[in-house]
């Protein structure tokens, strides 16, 4: 009753706001869910995938009752314990991340509504009719215009405020409830990201409904140093697109190079494939310090906070274009353009300019004015060698390197003329500059590394946005049956232990006919490797969302298309209604869609929130070693935990004994381990014998390849009957099974968690 009233109220709200409503599907149980609405689903997940906390500090320092010491069963002055405090911190991180995407979405939406009006139709091309799977599933809203998207983003804003409330001192006392709140924030994040990317595709006319987007130049050497250069840094294309418009309108696009670091770069190539992508976040400081950029334009997120200082050192001009990051600069939004240009050129002043058009004009004029006077070249090898000779091998640099690398040794080798080691380090380097800052001899370590770095240029496929409905129709069956062994989504930031890891992972799984999806900084990093034929993975593999394809969905906000694709499988392929039906979608994905996320280099709070959103939807995520510092994982213990599901056809709860997927958020120390976890985490209870045999084939073969032979210890847990055993390994596996006394078990007809926990969703709703 209360539920019905609530649903009616929310529908009425939507009706009122969008002034129309197509009843395209029956409404599910959780339109615009609030904190507690999906809590039972979360608790069910958390029962199997228990939060595992790695405290990053013994203390809590959040209020003036503290600092509170939380060691040894102590509670803070407010009553909180160490685990709950970690959970609170994770929620805060997820909210920082979620709010970053939501604000980006809200901002770009305002800009685009200003440009096109609120009634601009959402049209993602003929192959994308299901335009907004996250929004439809979460809100129960089918957005038809840019204006409709506002409802979605305002809902996200509201929920963010309510979640943030709960981090206040003296609030939530349960780590499980904080986790449920983090999962909520993660889910909201996917809504926010979806709003942003749909708005951008519609408003900027990005390619859509096409797989074969252009191949774009990648790497700092792809930028033509002889021209004036404007470099965008950040995540929000509101200004970069205007700069390109300005260049085109004024016939200057031939005369000025436009490039970028991080996601704004990716966005910009979707707007114009002549823009260059320098690389991921890890290349930011290198590129700035090289001084090659004449004008740097920052927008928001993942920008160095010391940009004004670095720009000044490098002699580059700086324009901050968004209110999130103003660096204390004078706000020149209302100042005369000529005057700004003059001050930037003559007095080398940096400014904040919050009006896109003005910022664009200033940027182009300043770049053209100062470029001719600037000397732009890398350090020579000889200069580098000379500088490297100052190194006293004191080890200070190693002590502060987030990647724990022994930079001194690399510098020392350079002094001897050997660039091998430093090149290795460059691949490991996140470009934070701590080593150089700490060096007592003031050796310009980053410049030396840059000399050692490869001078190659690469290709990246421009982001394509949503997976097409047509593609889903093709792959739906093989994915859920298991004959496409999995969808591997490589997402996240540049805090990976080794940049090559990523390309190797893509290569390995694309070759094995998994579907590989990439986005954000990872999409750039995987492009920075060439095979023996000199091909990047984008050139090597087809761009289709199909077995063996490598798909770049786009920037960080395009991650919503990956969750969206999972939902689409349930909705388009399995024909389960998605509208306000989050639990059914997530349950389907968890039990039947063999997808796994890899955030190998997650550092940013956005990464935490994206991953947590995937988790709520039932997609496991593998993290790199640094991510243990995010304080929380979701781990099962396969030997101890129950692995019960409901067989929806038989309406019986059955103990499968099968830990699939085994973990929801897992840290691997090495690439090798990740190579083995990926196929394993793609296993689903719904696999047919044929599908399971294929998945196990990869599991075993990758295990042999990367773990040095033998069979995975836990293999027997995944073999239900003989038919599951891959042919190639039949003998070896059977011998092992016999040895440990394995017994066959009945596969589950239609596995689901619905019915195993308190929910209003009837079991029958998972049957299609």
């Amino acid at each position, binding site marked *: 009753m209360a539920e019905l009233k609530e649903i009616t109220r929310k529908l009425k709200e939507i009706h009122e706001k969008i002034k129309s409503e197509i009843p395209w599907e029956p409404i599910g149980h959780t339109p615009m869910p609030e904190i507690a609405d999906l809590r039972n689903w979360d608790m069910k997940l958390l029962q199997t995938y228990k939060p*595992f*906390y*790695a*405290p*990053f*500090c*013994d*203390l809590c320092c959040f209020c003036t*009752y*503290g*600092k*509170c*010491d*939380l*060691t*040894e*069963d102590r509670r803070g*002055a407010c009553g909180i314990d*160490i*685990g709950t405090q970690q959970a609170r911190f994770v929620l805060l991180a997820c909210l920082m991340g979620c709010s970053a995407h939501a604000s980006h979405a809200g901002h770009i939406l305002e800009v685009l509504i200003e440009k096109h009006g609120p009634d601009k139709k959402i049209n993602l091309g003929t192959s994308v009719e299901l335009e907004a799977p996250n929004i439809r599933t979460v809100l129960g809203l089918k957005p038809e215009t840019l204006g409709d998207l506002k409802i979605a983003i305002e809902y996200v804003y509201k929920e963010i405020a309510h979640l943030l409330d709960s981090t206040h001192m003296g609030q939530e006392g349960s780590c499980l409830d904080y986790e449920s709140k983090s999962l909520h924030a993660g889910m909201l994040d996917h809504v926010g990201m979806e709003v942003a990317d749909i708005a951008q595709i519609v408003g900027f006319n990005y390619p859509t409904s096409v797989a074969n987007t252009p191949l774009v130049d990648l790497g700092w050497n792809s930028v033509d140093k002889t021209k004036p250069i404007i470099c965008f840094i950040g995540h929000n294309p509101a200004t970069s697109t205007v700069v390109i418009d300005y260049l085109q309108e004024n016939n200057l696009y031939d005369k000025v190079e436009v490039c970028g670091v991080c996601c704004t770069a990716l966005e910009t190539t979707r707007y114009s494939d002549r823009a260059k992508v320098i690389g991921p976040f890890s290349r930011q400081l290198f590129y700035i310090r090289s001084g090659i950029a004449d004008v740097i334009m920052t927008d928001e997120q993942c920008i160095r906070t010391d940009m004004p200082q670095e720009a000044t050192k490098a002699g580059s001009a700086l324009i901050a274009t968004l209110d999130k990051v103003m660096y204390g600069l004078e706000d020149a939004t209302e100042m005369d353009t000529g005057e700004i240009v003059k001050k930037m050129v003559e007095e080398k002043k940096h400014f904040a300019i919050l009006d896109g058009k003005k910022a664009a004009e200033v940027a182009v004029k300043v770049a053209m004015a100062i470029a001719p006077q600037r000397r732009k070249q890398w350090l020579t090898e000889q200069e580098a060698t000379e500088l490297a000779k100052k190194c006293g091998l004191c*080890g200070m640099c190693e002590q502060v390197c*987030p990647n*724990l690398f022994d930079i001194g040794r690399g510098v020392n080798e350079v002094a001897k003329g050997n660039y091998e080691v430093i090149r290795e380090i460059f691949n490991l380097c996140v470009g934070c500059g701590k080593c150089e800052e700490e060096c007592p001899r003031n050796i310009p370590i980053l410049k030396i590394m840059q000399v050692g770095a490869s001078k190659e240029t690469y290709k990246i496929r421009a982001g394509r946005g949503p997976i097409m409905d047509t593609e889903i129709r093709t792959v739906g069956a093989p994915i859920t049956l298991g004959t496409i062994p999995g969808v591997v989504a490589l997402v996240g930031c540049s805090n990976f232990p080794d940049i090559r890891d990523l390309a190797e992972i893509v290569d390995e799984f694309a070759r094995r006919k998994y579907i590989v999806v990439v986005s954000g900084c990872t999409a750039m990093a995987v492009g920075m490797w060439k095979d023996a034929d000199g091909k990047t993975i984008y050139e090597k593999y087809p761009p289709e969302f199909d077995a063996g394809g490598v798909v770049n969905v786009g920037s960080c906000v395009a991650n919503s298309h990956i969750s969206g694709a999972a939902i689409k499988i349930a909705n388009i392929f399995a024909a389960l209604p998605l509208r306000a039906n989050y639990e059914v979608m997530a349950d389907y994905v968890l039990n039947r869609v063999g997808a796994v996320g890899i955030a190998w280099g997650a550092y940013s709070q956005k990464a935490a929130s994206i991953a947590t959103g995937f988790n709520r939807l039932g997609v496991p995520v593998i993290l790199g*070693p*640094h991510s*243990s*510092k995010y304080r929380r*994982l979701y*781990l099962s*213990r396969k030997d*101890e935990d129950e692995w019960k599901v409901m067989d929806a056809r038989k309406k019986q709860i059955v103990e499968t004994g099968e830990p699939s997927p085994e973990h929801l958020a*897992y*840290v*691997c*120390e*090495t690439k*090798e*381990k990740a190579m083995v976890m990926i196929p394993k985490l793609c296993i689903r209870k719904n696999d047919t014998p044929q599908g399971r045999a294929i998945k196990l084939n990869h599991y075993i073969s990758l295990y042999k390849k*990367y*773990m*040095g*032979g*033998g069979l995975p*210890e836990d293999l027997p847990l995944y073999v239900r009957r003989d038919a599951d055993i891959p042919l190639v390994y039949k003998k070896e596996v059977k011998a092992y099974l016999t040895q440990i006394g394995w017994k066959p078990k009945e596969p589950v007809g239609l596995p689901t968690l619905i019915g195993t926990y308190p929910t209003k969703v009837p079991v029958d709703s998972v049957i299609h």
Partner: protein
Amino acid sequence: MSQLAPLMPYHRVNILTGTRTARLVEDPVEYAKQIQKAQRPLLVLGPRLLKITLGERLLIEYALDIAKAKNIPTCATATVKSKMVELGVPPDSVYDIVEIVNALKDPNWRGVRKEGNHDLVLFFGFRTDLGEQGLSVLKHFAPHLKTMTLCKYYYPHADFSLPNMRKDEQWKSFLEGLIENLKKE
């Protein structure tokens, strides 16, 4: 906590730092004693053991000597198992680091030899950041066991740790001393 005690502010509610910090041990005899005191020690082996050479030997060989000296059961993580098999000393168990830490947290876990959870866990061969985070888990959530590290860095979250060692020779002689002392008794 011992060495830090005089260096803690008196009013702990205003403390600047962490409050429980590893006991720093430089003497292999003391380490050996601690290990000998344990009823059910466990040696957890990380992937760095396969990458680092000390003297002429791979680090894993020192690790296996330690295990052998006192019949300490081993847990291989990451890619360590195959090397152990190659060396003819298969591990007692295979878990990845987060998995073994997760199991150790549970006081009722039966341990790798099914004799009950371990009371002393030695970590050897992990990235320092991941190692520290794993040790933090145990420090906070596994009061039933003690932790010890064998790498050449100081690990505050452990119960017993080596100091930071500038010279590999120092580390080598510590490890050799430890092996010798363990064999003794």
